[in-house]
């Protein structure tokens, strides 16, 4: 193993930063107010949704609009396993089940649709999310007779820690996949699916598995949030907003580096929390405008600007250094 990689300055800096952030987050509930913890719950949720979306769509280039579907499936799984009348399973099992049920749904839909290219896939996944909404409305209204499900509640703090764990796992998965041969296969698919297939990549399997992995984390997050919200119904669970938000956040933050979606998600989650509840129509309106403007003007996202900034900054530093050197030479 190459030890020097782990002792390089850059690695230590990044590791230190990550550690500091983790310590901050883990201890936050002890000194933060309940509403502040609530804001962080939202931020963590969006980070999980965005990063898990990027795991699949970021590399393969297949735009999935099914986040709402898997998020909602996780929520309703929790609603059935952790209802107000009394939990059927302990909470950690419920979370895992939320992830697993979404995983299975993703496997099945993936096998059916991942033979489709680009746009068809996007529309199909969108249709899937809305179909689930209508199905659930039908089920609740016609079959069980009332709308919405009540769950056994959990506190903000509990939800915070669960989501923190899920977020760490999601980021870890994203990081490990990116550096693995699976990640290489996905990148090859994104670059040229034909060539990838001809070099031996079983493109359908790779896509389906990655799609399912990303769905797992979305489902787990949904299962964690449903008991925190205590009451869910189809318009909350299968809201297509949750399909578009991660796309917007990923595009805004940039998808080249892993921290891009994290930054994008954090910024949006913070603004959303305060604005969306008070001015829902204005908020969604500006969300639409933001989506349009960002797609047109910022296709590489924020972190796409980083190379440009780095170049400019690097140029300034180099010129400063040169100036310093000539001074030194003048003095000798």
């Amino acid at each position: 193993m190459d030890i020097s990689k782990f002792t390089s300055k850059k690695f230590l800096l990044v590791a230190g930063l990550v550690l500091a952030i983790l310590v901050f987050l883990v201890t936050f509930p002890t000194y933060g107010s309940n509403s502040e913890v609530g804001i962080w719950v939202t931020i963590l949720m969006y980070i999980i949704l965005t990063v898990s979306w990027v795991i699949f769509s970021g590399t393969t280039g297949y735009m999935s609009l099914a986040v709402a579907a898997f998020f909602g499936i996780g929520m309703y799984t929790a609603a059935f396993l952790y209802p107000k009348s009394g939990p059927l399973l302990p909470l950690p099992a419920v979370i895992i089940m939320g992830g697993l049920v979404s995983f299975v749904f993703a496997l099945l839909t993936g096998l059916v649709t991942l033979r489709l290219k680009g746009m068809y896939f996007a529309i199909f996944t969108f249709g899937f999310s809305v179909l689930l909404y209508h199905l659930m409305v039908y089920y609740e209204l016609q079959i069980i007779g009332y709308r919405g499900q009540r769950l056994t509640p959990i506190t903000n703090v509990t939800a915070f820690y669960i989501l923190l764990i899920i977020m760490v796992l999601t980021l870890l998965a994203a990081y490990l996949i990116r550096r693995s041969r699976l990640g290489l296969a996905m990148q090859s698919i994104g670059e040229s699916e034909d060539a990838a297939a001809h070099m031996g990549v079983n493109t359908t399997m790779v896509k389906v598995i990655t799609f399912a992995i990303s769905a797992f984390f979305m489902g787990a997050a949904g299962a964690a949030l449903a008991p925190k919200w205590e009451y869910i119904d189809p318009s909350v669970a299968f809201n297509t907003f949750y399909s578009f938000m991660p796309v917007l956040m990923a595009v805004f933050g940039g998808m080249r580096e892993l921290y891009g979606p994290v930054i994008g998600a954090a910024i949006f989650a913070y603004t959303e929390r305060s604005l969306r509840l008070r001015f829902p129509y204005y908020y969604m309106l500006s969300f639409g405008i933001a989506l349009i403007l960002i797609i047109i003007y910022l296709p590489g996202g924020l972190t796409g600007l980083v190379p440009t900034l780095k170049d400019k900054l690097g140029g300034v530093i180099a010129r400063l250094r040169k100036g310093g050197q000539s001074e030194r030479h003048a003095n000798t």
Partner: protein
Amino acid sequence: MDKATVVWVIGSGLLNGGVYALAAMGLSVQYGVARVLNLSHGEFIMVAAWLTFTFYTGSGINPLASAAITAPLFLGIGFLLHRTIFTTLKKRAPTPAAFEGNSLLVAFGLLYVVQNTALLIWGGQPRAYFWLTSGVDIWGVRFTLNNVIALAVAVALGVAFYVFVNRSRLGKAIRAAAQDPATAGLMGININLVLPLCFGLGALLAGIAGVLLSMCYPISTYMGMGYTVIALIVVALGGLGSIPGSFIGGFILGIIGSIVVQFESALSMVAFYALLMILLVVRPKGILGKT
């Protein structure tokens, strides 16, 4: 099913079908020529419906008259939207696939913008107005006059549009641009005008669909998406870029929908979405490939 029910099912199916046909032709022309899959299409239908409602309840202008305002308005808005947003997107996109993906997202953005603007103006509650509601007896079943007029207008407009595309000079330019925009440009067709124009025509058709719809049914600010999905299904059934295909497909779907509603009305949206997804899997060329 007794005869009256059959007449009712077919009649209301044709009526819905007329609206679907216009909506589908609009979507078809937007994607077939301008290469934008405008998923906010249904929102334009909704806005047109609300505008007609406001004209009638606010100023007493009847729907057919206010259509004279709404139609050119939508043509212009569609033209401008393409000329500004989508043309810029096209210029900046590295590949055609990137353009399609980006325009899809932009269309969704438009969806949010239009829907929420409408919510701010008209609110979320369904409303309706009543014009020419006198009854007309057709084969023993009572339809309202406005329904009959709406159907007649839809058919007339569909036929007129077909004739326009196939016989007129502008129609020829449109068909050339749909086949091969680059070559069409080389042959002297002003692509910068024709593409936005087609997008505008699609919006115009959506507008008329909205006007007709508002005459016959209550209007809800959330009804747009349903029509977009239906337009997508029709286009999948009828083949993209085929005006007659979209026209006939619209009526077929209208009747199918009418039958589904007859048996289990609450499942109609489920049926439509499931049908869309099945069609996507079974014949993707139907929607997004060339026939």
